[in-house]
């Protein structure tokens, strides 16, 4: 158990280090851009030097780069005040900054957008896992048969179709042209407002996103199963006369589970940073739209905040997966 604890603490230490490196790099990259962050804070045609300088001071852009970064990091843990005295704007921890363009703490913007992206990511994750793993198993079991061919066809169309085309065609041909589906042509309904409306508004985005991912998973699961079935212990099990079904369920799938879970975990984490195309096509106000619009408006605090947030989720998910495997498989710890 000691070894495990040591491993976990080492893994967490490493995670923190990568997080620090990523956040620093993001901060640096956007500090190096040829934009004056302060002059971007006051509306679209702002050119009053007074307000620019005031905002520069409030956002701390007048401080040396390293100090700005340090203040940002401290703000993540302790919250942050922008400006002084009564005019100060306060963002509670974890503070990712303040957007003057949107008049809001970046953290609040992220927490507004996150439920939408979570809805999208969880739903499509379930969908693509069911379809992808299912088809993968079918394709592997019936190799060379018609089922394999059909699932291969599905996989290839799925991987060949850009998401924006899938989404657009679903909306235009299914929702609008056929006019028989109960799904809206876009937009998000909060589940606490109208759970049925939420479900209906999410179905097409789920399908769109899951289509692309399910294809990748079908392919992956199929090759995993085929590879594992050539391992000696599976052959032994077969030699012992165990039925194919039992071998698949008890041995093959168990061995294939770890890589599939890893892949799903990382894909899921990646999605929480925003599925830009799907969110754009279906008009979902999630993380992807938040960050994309921030880029369009050059809303630097939001760009920096969402990028670091998205990277953090990926890094943390990586660490979680590693630690979970360390529990399951002691060899990982060495």
């Amino acid at each position, binding site marked *: 158990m000691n070894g495990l604890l040591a491993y976990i603490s080492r893994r967490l230490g490493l995670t923190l280090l990568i997080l620090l490196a990523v956040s620093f790099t993001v901060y640096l990259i*956007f500090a190096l851009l040829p934009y004056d962050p302060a002059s971007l804070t006051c509306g679209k045609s702002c050119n009053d030097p007074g307000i620019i300088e005031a905002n520069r001071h409030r956002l701390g852009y007048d401080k040396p780069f390293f100090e700005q970064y340090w203040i940002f990091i401290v703000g993540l843990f302790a919250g942050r005040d922008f400006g002084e005295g009564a005019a100060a704007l306060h963002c509670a921890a974890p503070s990712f900054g303040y957007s003057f363009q949107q008049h809001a703490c970046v953290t609040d913007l992220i927490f507004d957008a996150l439920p939408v992206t979570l809805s999208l990511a969880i739903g499509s994750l379930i969908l693509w896992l069911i379809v992808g793993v299912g088809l993968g198993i079918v394709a592997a079991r019936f190799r060379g048969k018609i089922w394999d061919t059909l699932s291969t066809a599905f996989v290839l169309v799925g991987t060949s179709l850009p998401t924006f*085309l899938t989404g*657009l065609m679903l909306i235009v041909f299914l929702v609008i042209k056929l006019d028989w589906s109960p799904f809206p042509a876009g937009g998000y309904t909060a589940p606490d407002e109208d759970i049925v409306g939420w479900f209906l508004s999410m179905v097409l985005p789920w399908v769109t996103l899951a289509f692309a991912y399910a294809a990748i998973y079908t392919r992956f699961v199929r090759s995993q199963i085929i*590879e594992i079935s*050539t391992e000696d212990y599976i052959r032994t099990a077969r030699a012992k006369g165990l039925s194919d079904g039992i071998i698949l369920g008890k041995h093959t799938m168990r061995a294939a589970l770890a890589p599939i879970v890893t892949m799903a975990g990382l894909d899921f984490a990646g999605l929480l940073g925003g599925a830009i195309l799907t969110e754009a096509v279906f008009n979902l106000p999630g993380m992807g739209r938040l960050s994309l619009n921030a*880029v369009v408006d050059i809303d630097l605090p939001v760009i920096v905040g969402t990028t670091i947030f998205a*990277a953090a989720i990926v890094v943390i998910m990586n660490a979680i997966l590693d630690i979970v495997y360390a529990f399951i498989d002691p060899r990982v710890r060495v």
Partner: protein
Amino acid sequence: MFSKEAEQKVTGHSPRELAWRRFKSNKVAIPSLVVALLVILAVILAPLIYSLLGIDPAARDEGALDNRGEVPGDWNGISAKHPLGVVPGIGYDLLARMLFGARVSFLIALASTAITVFLGLLMGIVGGYFRGRVDGVIGRFTDFLLAFPTFFMIIALSAPTIERMEKSGLIQGNEARILYLIIIFAIFGWPYLSRIIRSQVISIRERDFVLSARALGASNFRILVKEVLPNVWTPVIIYVSLSLPGYLSAEAVFSYLGIGVQPPMPTLGTIIADSTKYMMNNSVYFFIPSLALILLVLTFNLLGDALRDALDPKSEN
């Protein structure tokens, strides 16, 4: 004494020949190879095709449009003069535009793949072979790169980076935009390949034939080139055949979002982005470029799968 060795059948085929045999026996392999080669040939020989068919990607045939910029009839003006019809609104020949666009798209995809493979191989081999501190640094660096939300970073960095490139005075306009896409695709692409190569190299490194070469007094360089490298070509070839269509559709996606090459130069992506506006009232124009992209990606994906099956005997058991 009687031994099994006496029974050993004499075949006499190199692994390459065996792979080619397996490849040929795959039903879709040859057709997809043929289509892929034809496409590549068409892209390379585009100027020849223009003159053969009498089409020109820069010429606009406004006679093919009505006075509101639309193509009369249901078939987007497909005729002997315009084999795939015309681009509505502006009157370009669609086939010529698509060939020209495919040239640019392929340039981006091929160059990105080449740089990705170069970096991925180099980093993967160096990390996997020398291990230790070098491997640690490369490994942490890939972790670090993979943590970034790639898609978003490509969008966020495009405008300022291209601006910088143009200000440097070395490269302008679409050349700068193409270079940006190539570089940024490669930067975020190599860590994936490098990981595959590294794990491959680590397992090869532990194989006795490497030890044997060392026992023979072979230098590290010789071992890398003669013993290690030939054994990582399989994942590399598979990666290339899959990343090429990946980058082709990535180009389309970023063009759809307005990042990338600007008119009058077309790419497959910009043509598709334009054609989505005609989804309803000129579906022929909408479907042709999209289908072309899907077919292209499909072909290379099939080819990649066939190569994988052929090169990796295990998957064929």
